[in-house]
């Protein structure tokens, strides 16, 4: 299962001929006794939008912290723009949106942005930032008076203020309502491109699917899959066949082309990359089968199956 997903080099070269801008090389990170990351290899290429997808506690925030130089790896190597992530030169090319609170509430949007712009040698103009983050007309508003969605947009504005080549967004839309989430998505999408690399962590599959052209699935500190949304669905068993049959689970599991079988109601739920051959075989073995249904599986299900596969 793994080999199929990880072997994406050809696929990647076709989509992005960008060079490697940052990488984790066999990186492990342990906090006291908990291992947050275990031997992770991850390369980020110029121009791609990568989603780190996984449940809470999977190690996504740790991965971002390593790239930002905020966390030192226990083992392995972190490189950003060819040097240590803590180097000032690489920092000026990076922007970040982290899961934080405690943003000073008595400063205005314009003031927050002006201060963060000053950290960079060649920042974007205030107007460009306000437009990109959808904050035009709110520049005099105090941070404390903003709605949840507006606050997240300001965090996004700060992240892009230095005109970064590499942008990290840690759970950018967590806690937002659907409308605000969609608005932030379109701002992120508009800001991508032009050789800019964006890394976002999320536990919303919909978000990864909507924004990323590459998804890295992380579970309990390990990369369990890395590929396009389509290839992940493919590997997890592209089609789901639901059927009521007298055939038992073991028989079906042994059929060629079947990747997984689970009992469901009075029948079976069968996963197969190509459904046609399996259906033909099933009909051959049990001409009386009924309730046949073939559907594509969602990313949500692909994700669940991949994580369960590792646990087993």
């Amino acid at each position, binding site marked *: 299962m793994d080999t199929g997903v990880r072997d994406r080099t050809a696929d990647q070269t076709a989509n992005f001929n960008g060079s490697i801008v940052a990488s984790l090389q066999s990186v492990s*990170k342990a*906090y006291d006794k908990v291992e947050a990351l275990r031997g992770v290899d991850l390369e980020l290429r110029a121009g791609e939008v990568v989603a780190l997808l996984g449940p809470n506690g999977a190690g996504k*925030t*740790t991965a971002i*912290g390593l790239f*930002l*130089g*905020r*966390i*030192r790896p226990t083992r392995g190597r972190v490189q950003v723009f060819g040097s240590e992530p803590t180097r*000032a030169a690489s*920092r*000026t090319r*990076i*922007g*970040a949106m*982290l*899961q*934080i*609170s*405690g*943003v*000073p509430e*008595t*400063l205005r949007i314009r*003031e927050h942005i*002006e*201060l*963060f712009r*000053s*950290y*960079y*040698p060649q920042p974007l103009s205030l107007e460009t930032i306000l437009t990109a983050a959808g904050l035009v007309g709110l520049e005099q508003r*105090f941070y404390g008076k903003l709605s949840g969605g507006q606050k997240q947009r300001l965090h996004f504005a*700060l992240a892009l203020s*230095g005109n970064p080549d590499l942008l990290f967004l840690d759970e950018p839309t967590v806690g937002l309502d659907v409308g605000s989430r969609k608005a932030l998505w379109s701002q992120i999408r508009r800001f991508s491109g032009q050789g800019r690399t964006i890394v976002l962590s999320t536990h919303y599959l919909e978000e990864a699917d909507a924004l990323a052209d590459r998804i890295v699935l992380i579970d309990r500190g390990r990369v369990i899959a890395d590929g396009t949304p389509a290839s992940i669905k493919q590997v997890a068993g592209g089609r789901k066949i639901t059927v009521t049959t007298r055939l038992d689970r073991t028989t079906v599991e042994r059929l060629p082309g079947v990747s997984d079988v689970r009992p469901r109601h009075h029948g079976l739920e069968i996963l197969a990359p190509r459904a046609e051959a399996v259906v033909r075989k099933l009909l051959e073995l049990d001409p009386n089968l009924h309730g046949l249904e073939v559907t594509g599986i969602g990313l949500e299900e692909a994700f669940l199956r991949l994580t369960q596969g590792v646990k087993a």
Partner: protein
Amino acid sequence: MILQASTTTHRRRRNALRIFWLESKYEFLKNLRLPIYSLSVLMFPVMFYVLFGLSFGRSDFGPVSSSLYYAVTYSAFGIMGASLFGFGVNVAVERGQGWMHLKRAFPMPPLAYFAAKVFMATLFGLIIVLTLLTLGTLFGGMRLAAGQILVIVGVLIAGALPFSALGLALGYLTGPNSATAVVNLIYLPMSFSAGLWIPIQELPAFFQTLAPYLPSYHYAQLGLASIGAGDGGHVGWHILVLTGITLVSLLVALVLYFRDEARSYG
């Protein structure tokens, strides 16, 4: 080539100055607009001075008038608060809630962050001491020469450094929820016991014995010595104690800062 290099250095220096300036300006504005900080830090010394320093009429404390004596002790009280709260509570909150982590992920020079807080606390301190001296002059019959004002202001502002350092250490020792309470628990008893509210000579003997162990006492005595109203202790000794407290606090803060930097989050 050489010219180019020097303009780059020049530009970099100007950028750094701009960061320090904006960081300081917004640190000040942020706190000024925060009533819990600006009102308590500015209003309490002013209110206490008006109530206890001016409204009882004029009397003399040894060589100086009560209005001048209280102007110094209540200024010391106010400036100490500006420093302790400005550092302690701000650092604890910004550290505990992730704001500092975010700023550290950006190319902000860490020194700018701390320098801005020194600037902010100094500016609040200046406002306090100048307000009290003005009130004393207008309503307390104080007559001070320009040189005297300069000495008082200079001693009180410079003498606040240990409390900025102590506040910084407290900012690292406490969390966002406990900082205000902890700082108050240290600040208020320390102010009273050192004779910042009621002259030390009028406090019960217990406090007079306790006072020399408190940094607030040495600070107040430095301020009072600048108007010739100290209790006779050696100025050098006060300075030595305050320097010691500054160094120990900075050391604690520095150790905890690097522990924070090494430790990760999330």
